């Protein structure tokens, strides 16, 4: 028996997403992922003063606005060969880490876990406790997380004025120097947040969580305590979330927090099938538009990419391009689909637990994606404490950027949800081309010219769909495990 299901909108996902599923014998046989919104940011930037990108790009996405700023600042710095002073570099890292950490927790507590509080899971041994803690908007964890998160975001208040949508991140550093007292206060903000993480979230020291190296050690750790992360591990074991949502074999990370040579999390491409790491080469990225409602032919490298919407046709089809089904382009690395995100970042960086979880399941999966995210939380906060201590009030925070007449630049950063790249061309002192490849563009890309489905499209195949399920739960778990950001995707 086969049927076609159109699923959407997906709540607790940043932005609009629609998934079309071909279901055969109770399983997904094929999936198509559609971004039903077009926003036109890349067109909007052409002709503007290059620094105006710093105003425009954060507004692509409220949840990764700092990552967008950081990528634009990096592309602008690259275009003029500018280097930041040490303080500026530290402040950039801290502001981006602040956003990414907050996003990881927002995802875990507000977007992902509430699905397990659903009535459909009543009767599972863990359900009553999960329901009390993670019920959407009213669970007791929500009441603890929101104030802890708001207090933590003071870090960005001090360093960047506000979140989201700050102009503090500049190509030469940041606009806001900190005083010695503010440095003390920043450490206090981090101390408070550490207490939340080591309390309700982990119930253990961050260093102990970061040191978990094998799946067995992780599971033993989980059964030995009660904490929100331990609750997730119990759910994951019961529902076998490790068997759910495998995508492709290629994991890509731009490298995070620092220049490519000395960043906290390494840059690279991890090939799971042969367990090998290769360097990442930005020149190997190209975007295919064969299934997008966009004009264009062969795949183009982003530096020479174009974004021209095809506006003809009816509401749900396009006469010019019947094969198209999304506003999203299909980025490929050496022609191949890649997955990006915390799991890719930790696997590329060589964290033993991330690599072992991949090896155990033979690829990416719902459990591994969530574990990698929280593992990263445990690794990132101690690094932030170091960065605050290294700030040197009195020394400069910002080098001056000068406008090149003709130049090009690439800015590669990691948002919470994965690799984000900005490709910029300046001609006659104005933006001549601006292309953005966002994390969810990688993960939720449509098919390419060869018909190869994107990462989520692959990850959905084989999932069980109950006879009367219209919005299958397994599909929701897999979709949310990527922490997608559709507004970035459809910039």
């Amino acid at each position, binding site marked *: 028996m086969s049927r076609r299901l159109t699923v959407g909108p997906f709540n607790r996902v940043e932005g609009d997403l629609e998934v079309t599923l071909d279901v055969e014998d109770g399983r997904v046989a094929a999936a198509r992922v559609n971004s039903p919104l077009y926003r036109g940011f890349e067109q909007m930037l052409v002709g503007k003063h290059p620094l105006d990108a710093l105003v425009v790009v954060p507004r692509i996405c409220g949840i990764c606005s700092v990552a967008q700023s950081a990528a634009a600042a990096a592309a602008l710095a690259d275009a003029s060969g500018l280097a930041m002073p040490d303080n500026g570099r530290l402040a950039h890292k801290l502001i981006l880490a602040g956003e990414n950490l907050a996003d990881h927790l927002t995802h875990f507590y507000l977007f992902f876990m509430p699905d397990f509080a659903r009535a459909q899971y009543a009767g599972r041994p863990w359900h009553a406790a999960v329901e009390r803690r993670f019920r959407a*908007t009213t669970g007791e964890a929500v009441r603890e997380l*929101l104030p802890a998160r708001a207090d933590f975001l003071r870090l960005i208040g001090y360093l960047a004025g506000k979140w989201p949508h700050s102009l503090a991140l500049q190509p030469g550093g940041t606009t806001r120097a900190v005083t010695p007292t503010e440095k003390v206060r920043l450490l206090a903000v981090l101390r408070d947040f550490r207490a939340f993480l080591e309390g309700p979230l982990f119930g253990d020291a961050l260093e102990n969580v970061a040191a978990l190296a094998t799946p067995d050690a992780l599971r033993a750790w989980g059964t030995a305590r009660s904490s929100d992360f331990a609750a997730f591990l119990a759910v994951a074991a019961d529902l076998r979330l490790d068997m759910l949502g495998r995508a492709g074999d290629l994991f890509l990370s731009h490298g995070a927090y620092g220049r490519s040579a000395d960043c906290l999390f390494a840059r690279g491409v991890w090939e799971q099938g042969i367990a090998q790491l290769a360097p990442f080469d930005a020149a190997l990225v190209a975007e295919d538009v064969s299934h997008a409602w966009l004009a264009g032919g062969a795949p183009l490298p982003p530096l020479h990419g174009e974004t021209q919407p095809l506006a003809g046709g009816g509401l749900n089809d396009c006469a010019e391009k019947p094969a198209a089904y999304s506003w999203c382009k299909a980025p490929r690395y050496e022609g191949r689909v890649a997955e990006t995100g915390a799991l890719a970042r930790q696997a590329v960086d060589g964290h033993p637990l991330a690599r072992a979880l991949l090896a155990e399941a033979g690829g990416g999966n719902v459990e591994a994606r969530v574990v990698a995210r929280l593992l990263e939380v445990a690794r990132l906060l101690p690094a932030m404490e170091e960065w605050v201590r290294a700030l040197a009030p009195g020394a400069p925070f910002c080098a*001056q950027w000068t406008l090149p007449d003709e130049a090009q630049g690439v800015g590669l950063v990691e948002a919470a949800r994965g690799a984000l790249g900005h490709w910029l061309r300046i001609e006659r002192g104005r933006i001549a081309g601006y292309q953005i490849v966002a994390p969810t563009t990688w993960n939720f890309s449509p098919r390419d010219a060869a018909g190869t489905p994107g990462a989520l499209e692959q990850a959905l195949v084989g999932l069980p769909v109950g006879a009367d399920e219209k919005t299958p739960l397994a599909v929701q778990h897999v979709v949310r495990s990527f922490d997608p950001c559709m507004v970035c995707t459809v910039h």
Partner: protein
Amino acid sequence: MGATTAAAPLRLLWFQASGCGGCTQSLLGAESRAGVFAQLAASGIELVFHPAVSEASGDEFLALLADAAAGRRPFDILCVEGALLRGPQGSGRFHLLSGSGRPVIDWVRELAAQARYVLAIGTCTAFGGINAAGDNVTEACGLQFDGEAPGGLLGERFRAASGLPVINVAGCPTHPGWVVDTLLSIAAGALGADDLDAWQRPRFYAEQLVHHGCAKNEFYEFKASAQKHSDLGCLMENMGCKGTQAHADCNLRAWNGVGSCIRGGFACIACTEPGFEEPGHPFMETPKVAGIPIGLPIDMPKAWFVALAALSKSATPKRVRENSRADHPVVAPALGKGRPK
């Protein structure tokens, strides 16, 4: 006491059109002991649905929405977040609501017709905002304004069932306090047509200027101006600051507990105003004619501004001048002789 909480709670439906989600992210950071949802609940506002945080998804959500749009499921407050995309050619195809095959603008028209109060959350929803920048290829507009022009998606004459026009909680993003104060005022029966300014923004924050309470006030007084990013001086003369023209209380009410744009060292770009997205000059440079900024402080005659600026520049104390060009204070205020008198 208890009158507002004892009455039936006001049911709030949140709907996301074409935005970045930043206003919701901002709202989640509202300062409150148990978070914003608990605060709203305690104030007599029941969150029926919010796409970023509610449980229902897919078909459950579409059913709820269809009932609300058709009047089968009564609700009180509609918060719309994000611009309304009318393109291409008025079809709304640039933004269909997932799973429904229908343009978002159609859903918004129907929902607005059922609501007692309609709030435009953020500048996108109020005026079109950043979506309308450049050539506005998506034909983005706000609920009751298209940039500065009255009209927008719902038309100039639209009134919600309460008799109020769309309440524009403008800001890019909007401050969580602006949203919470507006909702709590509605719940307390304390928000009427007179409480909105000419752009239909709540007056409690729109009848302030960003300049009010700015920590750079002494630099402003002496026209001791920042020359480059990270300088401490006033940002008006060179760095593009519109704080003396922008309506908002950003320096009277902190952002993220401790910040503001200007405390962060960068210009106010007047994000609460219609048309902020296309200022006609690079955002981070002050447009000038013959050395005089063309955007003068609100309510200030030009001749006075020019005369005062020249006078105060000639009287700038050395401390203020030197500090304005550094990223940290290099000269401390002198100690007075004896006690302050």
